[in-house]
């Protein structure tokens, strides 16, 4: 027996009575980064849900008396853009759009990716077909995919989300497949198979519930990626169409007068960054909390 196994055995047997879920929660609560990022996310989601009520102005409302007003201008906390539109209001509604796209994209990726990943990991015959499919999808990088999608179906929030989601499918398939492969080789699954359980039953009752944690971690990685993806697409004019507020279109618009009104270019970018950062930090904490090897040196 090696020292490493000796070390992992020692702490593993200590809190044996605590269940997986409560242990994860306990670890998360004890990690200040997890708590802070979770709070930021909660605020962001609440703001997004109640965005129309919280925004001081309608996002498209112009105020030609107050164009390019700097932050701190009375009535415009974060200033205005070239048409006198309130930057704060547009950021609030733009963040809402970002989260909508991210949620829809990740939902799409999971709905298609999880079953395919399970099947690829569980049935050898399906594996090579799905692997080729994944290769093929990977050969069309995200932007090309989104560009094609926008060209065929038109540029819109929904289409951008679906294009981003499709681009994220290979990643989901890969992690779910490898976890399914791992779970399949475990004793309890083998026991279920010996007991005559059907493949569908084994997949649904044994493999899927145990793969939840990988799926969860993958989702926390995919969400910030989708937020950034939406910003890129809207920036290029392939996502949400102006005048609807989106953080990406705000940046594209601000590019023209950035030298005179840097806040209009800097602030939406910061908003994107904070959203993505909060998801990434929370995702990291979650992964650490779920990792049974977290105690290794």
């Amino acid at each position: 027996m090696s020292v490493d196994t000796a070390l992992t055995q020692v702490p593993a047997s200590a809190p044996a009575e605590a269940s997986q879920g409560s242990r994860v929660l306990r670890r998360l609560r004890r990690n200040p980064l997890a708590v802070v990022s979770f709070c930021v996310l909660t605020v962001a989601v609440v703001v997004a849900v109640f965005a129309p009520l919280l925004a001081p102005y309608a996002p498209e409302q112009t105020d030609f008396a107050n164009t390019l007003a700097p932050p701190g201008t009375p009535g415009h906390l974060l200033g205005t853009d070239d048409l006198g539109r309130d930057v704060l209001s547009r950021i609030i509604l733009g963040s809402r759009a970002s989260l909508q796209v991210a949620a829809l994209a990740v939902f799409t990726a999971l709905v298609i990716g999880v079953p395919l990943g399970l099947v690829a990991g569980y049935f050898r015959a399906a594996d090579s077909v799905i692997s080729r499919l994944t290769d093929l999808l990977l050969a069309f990088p995200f932007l090309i995919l989104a560009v094609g999608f926008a060209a065929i179906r038109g540029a819109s929030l929904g289409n951008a989300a679906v294009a981003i989601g499709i681009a994220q499918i290979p990643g989901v398939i890969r992690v779910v497949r490898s976890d399914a492969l791992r779970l399949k080789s475990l004793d309890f699954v083998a026991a279920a198979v010996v007991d005559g359980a059907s493949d569908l039953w084994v997949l649904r009752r044994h493999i899927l519930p145990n793969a939840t944690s990988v799926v969860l971690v993958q989702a926390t990685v995919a969400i910030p990626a989708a937020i950034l993806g939406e910003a890129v697409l809207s920036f290029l004019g392939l996502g949400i169409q102006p005048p609807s507020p989106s953080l990406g279109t705000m940046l594209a618009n601000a590019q023209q007068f950035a030298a005179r009104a840097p806040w209009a270019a800097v602030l939406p970018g910061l908003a994107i960054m904070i959203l993505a950062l909060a998801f990434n930090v929370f995702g990291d904490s979650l992964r650490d909390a779920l990792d049974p090897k977290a105690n290794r040196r």
Partner: protein
Amino acid sequence: MTATAPPESLVDAPPVLDVRDLSVTFRTETGSVSAVDGVNLSLAPGEIVGIVGESGCGKSVTAMSLAGLLPRSARIDGSVRLQGQELVGARPSTLRAARGRDIAYIFQEPMSSLNPVLTVGRQVAEVLQVHERLSRREALERAVELLALVGIPSARERVKHYPHQLSGGMRQRVMIAMAVACSPKVLIADEPTTALDVTVQAGILDVLRDLRDRFGTSILVITHDLGVIADIADRVVVMYAGRIVERAGVQRLFDRPQHHYAAGLLSASPTPGRHAGTHRLQEIPGLVPVLEAQPDACTFADRCPAATARCSSAAPPLEPAPLAADVGDHPHEVACWHPRGDRPRPTVEEHA
């Protein structure tokens, strides 16, 4: 008062390795865990000592702590003197100079213990390049000799091979070649044969014995396989839950185990002189406990057939065994309030 001359055994050469009061604790998420508690151990030149015990008894941690090979979460107290030089708390450069040159290791898993992306020759040569300042060519040349020394056929071709191209037994021989490259004074073999087939085990043990005979290397064998102990060791140390519970010459321990734990281990094991085989530890009900701190009690009391109230209220010290018969070449000591005394070791039926 007339001074009598001390018996021969006490004027032997000073020990190459002298461990005093060694304790190891690990910091973990849920508090600290005591893995080794107050271990005393010495190794005479050319001596082969076995440490035996179940998984988690602290034998591997003891072995790793000797050259400071534990992770940072480990805290080591006490003293480890290698040829008089203190290693506990020594500077990293001192430890590095000692590792591989004066004290060398052989690990359990010859597959994972060798780097998969370097040739075995390179891995053997590396030690010589570091400690003997040989050039890469000279070191590779020596590596060929070393592989031949540990019984690897056509060594000149083998040096160019990668670990996955060799069998388990061959890999373990490579590990040994690597360990003895600089003729270390002390060789620590942590479960050297556990991962190997029974037929390969004997060969590996022969190589180790041969090294001791030819170079006077002292060897510390860590194992849970009493067959290995019977086959190769001069003395044996029995560990339980981080403490030494008994030590004696091999023949002694096999004939008259004093501690009930040792007796349990032995009840289904071979006699000295028989080759290592499939014999594994007799099943003793229960598990080695995980301890946050070492209690003032016998840690084996929960599993012991002879436990009394005293066992749970005070830790028994390691003292000479109460035996009528001759002690032999090596002292026989036991940490037990109710040692088995002159009773012979139990048979399988008796213990079950």
